[in-house]
C-alpha cells in the first residue's frame, strides 16, 4: 500500500473496521483522556495546577490509535502536550495528576510538572519542553533498539509547529540513513500556539516532509481512531521489518487553547464548534457502538468509570503533600 519513499494520498479507499472489542478499547481509552483533561482544566482554574498546562482534548484518537497498534515494549516520546500519551502508555492517572499539581506522589516527585514527565517502566521517554526535541531523542531511543536488535519500535510524536524546527530534519536524515525503527507522528492540530499552519509552513502537506530523506509518509484523518490504528499498524510493521523510519501526519484538532492561558482568538468559535459536532473522535466511536447495538447505559457506565478514576486522581493530587524541601537537592546527579 505504501511506496518505498512515496507519499500516499490522504483519501484511504476503505476504513478498516474495528471489532466490538477494539471499539470499546478505543472508547474507554479516549474517554479517560478526555475526562482527565477536563479535570486538569478545572484544577488549573482552581490554582491546584500551575505553570503551563497544555490539554489534549480533541486529539485523543491519535495517541490511542497508535497505542492500539503498538506492542509491549515499544517506546513513546512526545513534547509537552503529553498527558494523553502518558495515560495511553499505561501510566497511573493519579500520579500524572499529582505531578501536574506539583506534589510528591507525582511521577517526577513534583519536580517536572505538566511538561516534563517520564516513566521508564511504562517506556515513556517524555514529556519534553522543547517542541522539536522528541524527534532526535525518539530517534536515539530507536538507535538503542537497533543496537540491541530487540525488535522494539520508537513511537515519536510532535506537533506541526515543531515540524519546522531544524532538529526534526537532522533526526529524519539519520533515522533514514541508519534505518532506525522509529515512527514519526506529526500531530497536526493546525495551530502552533496562535499561528495557523499556512502562515508558518511553505509545504502544509507534512507527510511530504520526509520525502527528501526517503521516508515514506502518509497524511491521515487523525480524528478517526480506526484510520490512525490501521496506519500505525503499517508503519510499525515497516519499522519492525528493518525498513527504517515512517512518517505519519495525523490531521487533528485541539478544542482548547494552546495552553490554559490562551483565549484562542486566532480562530472562530464556529470552527471549533464544527469540529466538535462533526469530527469528534469519541463521538464517532460512540455512534458506531450505538449503531452496533450497544445501549446508552453501557456506554454511560464506561464514562462513569472514567470519571471515577479521574475524580480519584484529582483527590489524590489535591490531598497529596508538596515535595519535602530536601527534594530541591536530590536527583541533580545520579549517584
Amino acid at each position, binding site marked *: 500500500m505504501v511506496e518505498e519513499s512515496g507519499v500516499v494520498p490522504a483519501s484511504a479507499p476503505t476504513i478498516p473496521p474495528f471489532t466490538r472489542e477494539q471499539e470499546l478499547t478505543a472508547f474507554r481509552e479516549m474517554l479517560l483522556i478526555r475526562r482527565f483533561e477536563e479535570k486538569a482544566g478545572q484544577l488549573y482554574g482552581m490554582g491546584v495546577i500551575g505553570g503551563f498546562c497544555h490539554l489534549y482534548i480533541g486529539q485523543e484518537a491519535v495517541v490511542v490509535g497508535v497505542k492500539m497498534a503498538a506492542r509491549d515494549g515499544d*517506546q513513546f*516520546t512526545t513534547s509537552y502536550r503529553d498527558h494523553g500519551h502518558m495515560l495511553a502508555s499505561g501510566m497511573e492517572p493519579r500520579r500524572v495528576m499529582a505531578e501536574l499539581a506539583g506534589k510528591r506522589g*507525582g*511521577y*517526577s*516527585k*513534583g*519536580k*517536572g510538572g505538566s511538561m*516534563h*514527565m*517520564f*516513566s*521508564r517502566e511504562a517506556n515513556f*521517554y*517524555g*514529556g*519534553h*519542553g*522543547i517542541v522539536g*526535541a522528541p*524527534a*532526535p*531523542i*525518539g*530517534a*536515539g*531511543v*530507536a*538507535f*538503542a*533498539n537497533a*543496537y540491541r536488535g530487540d525488535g522494539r519500535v*520508537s513511537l515519536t510524536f510532535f506537533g506541526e509547529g515543531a515540524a519546522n524546527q*531544524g*532538529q526534526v530534519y*537532522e*533526526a529524519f*536524515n*539519520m533515522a533514514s*540513513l*541508519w534505518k532506525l525503527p522509529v515512527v514519526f507522528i506529526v500531530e497536526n492540530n493546525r495551530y502552533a500556539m496562535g499561528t495557523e499552519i499556512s502562515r508558518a509552513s511553505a509545504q502544509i502537506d507534512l507527510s511530504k516532509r520526509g520525502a527528501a530523506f526517503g521516508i515514506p509518509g502518509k497524511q491521515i484523518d487523525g480524528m478517526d481512531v480506526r484510520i490512525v490504528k490501521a496506519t500505525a499498524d503499517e508503519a510499525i510493521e515497516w519499522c519492525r521489518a528493518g525498513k527504517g523510519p515512517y512518517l505519519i501526519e495525523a490531521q487533528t484538532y485541539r478544542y482548547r487553547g494552546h495552553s490554559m492561558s490562551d483565549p484562542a482568538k486566532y480562530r472562530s468559535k464556529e470552527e471549533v464548534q464544527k469540529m466538535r459536532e462533526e469530527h469528534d473522535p469519541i463521538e464517532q466511536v460512540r455512534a458506531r457502538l450505538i449503531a452496533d447495538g450497544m445501549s446508552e447505559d453501557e456506554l454511560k457506565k464506561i464514562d462513569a468509570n472514567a470519571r471515577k478514576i479521574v475524580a480519584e486522581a484529582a483527590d489524590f493530587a489535591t490531598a497529596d503533600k508538596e515535595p519535602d524541601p530536601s527534594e530541591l537537592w*536530590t*536527583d*541533580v*546527579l*545520579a*549517584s
Partner: protein
Amino acid sequence: MTVNVLMPALSPTMEQGKLAKWLKNEGDAVKAGDVIAEIETDKATMEVEAVDEGVLARILIPGGTENVAVNTPIAVIAEEGEEVADTADHAPVDRVGEEDKAQEQAEAAPPVPGQTAPQDEPGEANKAATKAAVEAATPAPKATSVAAQPSPRVAPEVPEGTTMVSMTMREALRDAMAEEMRRDPSVFVIGEEVAEYQGAYKVTQGLLQEFGAKRVVDTPITEYGFAGVGVGAAFAGLRPIVEFMTFNFSMQAIDHIVNSAAKTLYMSGGQINCPIVFRGPNGAAARVAAQHSQDYSAWYSQVPGLIVISPSNASDAKGLLKAAIRNDNPVVFLENEILYGKTSEVPALEDFVLPIGKARIARPGKDVTLVSFSIGMTYALQAAEQLAKEGIDAEVIDLRTLRPMDTATIIESVKKTGRCVAIEEGWPQCGVSAEIAMRVQQEAFDYLDAPVLRVTGKDTPMPYAANLEKLALPSVADVVTAAKAVLYR
C-alpha cells in the same frame, strides 16, 4: 637559482613530523606538483609536492627521519645543470619572519633568562629529553607554542612503583575509549569523522577496526541532531561517547546537552539518567580565529546536572575519560588540540580510573597558589619554574574536574600560601577563575594576604593574526607578573 623544499605543516598546531620516505632520488627531474615525498604525524600522512620545476639536487633530510621540525629545509630543487653548493647555505625561505616572531616574544616577555624561548628550558623534570632536544632545534616557536612543558607530577592516585609509559594525550584518550568499549558492550562512539577517517584529530584512531561500524558511528554534519540521538540512546540505556569535532560546534547542540541531558534526571524525579560523554577539543588551537577558538569551560560548568572535566596531561586524560564513560551522568569532557600531541607519563595499569571531582597538586609550594586546568596548566607550571628561580615557591593546582569543583584542595592551599592566582584561557567575565576567586574569598578570606588575581584570555573574540592571537591568550609572563603582584614583589 635553487629553491628549498620545506617541511610543511599539516595542521595549525603541527610542530614536527616524520619524513616517511622519498619518492624521488637525488638527480631526478621534477615538475611543479610532482609528489616527491611522504610525511607523517601521529594524525595524518600527506604528500609533499615539488614547488618548482628542475632537478631534485639534494635531499637534506633522509627518508625515515623522525621529529623533523616544520619549516626545516628538507630538499633543494635546482635548475637543470646548476651546481648546488653546501646545504648549510640554504636557510628556510621564511626564516626572516620567524626571527621577527622570536624577537616579538623577547620583547613581550619580561627580561628573565630563559623566557624568550621556553623551548630551551624544558625543566629538570622533563623526562622526554629527546623530544625536548628536537623541539629546541625548531627554528622558532609558533605563536601559541607551548612545547616542552615540564612534566606534571603524576596523579597521587597512582601507587608508588607503578611502571609508567610515555604516550601522547591523543593515545591516552583513544586507549581509554578502547578499554571501556572492550569492557562494556553498551559503550559506543558517535560523531563526525570518528570512524572511516579515524577521527578529525585522530583521537578515535583504530576504533573502527577493532569495534566495527555498529559501535563506531560516523554521522552527517548534524551536531544538534546527533547530540539528541545520543541523549535518546542514553535514556534507553546505552553509553554513548559523542565526539564533537571541536566544542565550537557543540553550540549547535547545547540545547540537548543542557535541556535534555543535564536536566532529565531531575525532571523525571530520578527515573531517567543520561550516561553520556560529550568530548572533543575545546578552546583555542592555533590561528583558527574567532569561531574555532572558543573556550566552553565556564559555559558548561555553570550547569547543574552536568559533570565537566578538562585534563592537562595524558595520565589524567586516560583515568578521567574512563571514569566519565562509567559515570551514570552526562559528562562534558573538554580536551585541547594543542595538548593532543604532548607526551607524558601514563601508569601502565590494567584498569587506571581516576576519581572525578578531585584536583591534583601538580607542584607543591608555600608562597603562592596557582590554580588552573587543561592548557592553562602549561602557563602555570612554566611560571612556577621561573618564579622558583627568583626564590618564589609556587604551589600549582590542576583542577582536572571543573564541576564538581574541588574547592577544598584550593582552600587548603590558600590557607597555607595566603595568595592565589587563577589561570584559564577562557574569557574573564563569569569565568572559571571568577568562580575560584569567589570561593576563595568566601571560604579563606581571613587567610588572604592579597586580593585573588586571575590571568585569562582577553575579553575579545579570538583574532587570526599571529601577534594578536598571542596577545589574546594568557602567557607565562602574565602569570609570573600576577604571582609577583599578589606577593607585592
